[in-house]
């Protein structure tokens, strides 16, 4: 994590949080575009729904870099602190995924059975496939997103070859 991307310094938590927000706002934008695009005469929105995938791909890559910087690469064994960071991230992700899945199922039940209000839910195979892709994206990126969101700033004095100031 030695480089800046798009003028953002990812050693700072604030910059990393922006990436997390951008990633999941893109997911929300796709769902909104799919829902709005299912109305008559709004088909162009379905095409627009694919544009956030570019943002999501960039965010995925950045979050992956952050995750590796904080919890180590997959080729080296983790030390006890890195294991703690990773376990905390998995635990938070698990909680979030459970809550999101429960909410989505609840919404689906209401949308499929409600007779008084018209709520959108996927009808075509393309819509289902997009939602499955979004779910996969969220579940894959969430542990790294938790690390990016929660871990403190990457301090300059954490450079490996710095000697401490002499006493």
């Amino acid at each position: 994590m030695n480089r800046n991307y798009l003028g953002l310094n990812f050693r700072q938590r604030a910059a990393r949080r922006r990436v997390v927000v951008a990633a999941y706002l893109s997911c929300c934008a796709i769902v909104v575009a799919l829902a709005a695009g299912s109305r008559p005469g709004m088909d162009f929105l379905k095409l627009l729904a694919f544009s956030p995938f570019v943002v999501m791909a960039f965010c995925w890559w950045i979050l992956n870099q952050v995750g590796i910087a904080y919890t180590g690469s997959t080729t080296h064994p983790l030390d006890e602190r890195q294991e703690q960071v990773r376990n905390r991230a998995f635990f938070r992700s698990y909680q979030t995924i459970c809550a999101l899945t429960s909410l989505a199922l609840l919404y689906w039940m209401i949308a499929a059975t409600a007779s008084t209000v018209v709520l959108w839910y996927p009808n075509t195979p393309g819509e289902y496939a997009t939602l499955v892709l979004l779910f996969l994206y969220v579940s894959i990126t969430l542990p790294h997103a938790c690390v990016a969101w929660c871990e403190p700033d990457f301090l300059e004095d954490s450079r490996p070859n710095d000697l401490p100031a002499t006493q």
Partner: protein
Amino acid sequence: MARKVSSTVKLYNRISVLRAERNLTRQDLADELGVNYQTIGYMERGDYNPSLELVFRISEFFDLPIETIFSREPLPPLSQELYGRKASLVSGEKEKQR
């Protein structure tokens, strides 16, 4: 009644001082202890409390008792502790001579 123990007790340590004395980089110490160099930085800043196993490894590496390296109270500078002890020894000897 069981004593309530906070999970966020800060552990003070002298790792950076001992590292300076031995002219070691974070990477050198990390390699010796088998941890990531960032973990050394986290411990030095007091952002991470090491496990008992790692504390023992640090103690063995520096060849010092654990209580010399780690404390639950802020640690005084080593020089102050050393000269304080020396001064008390000198004053004790003077009293004996009287």
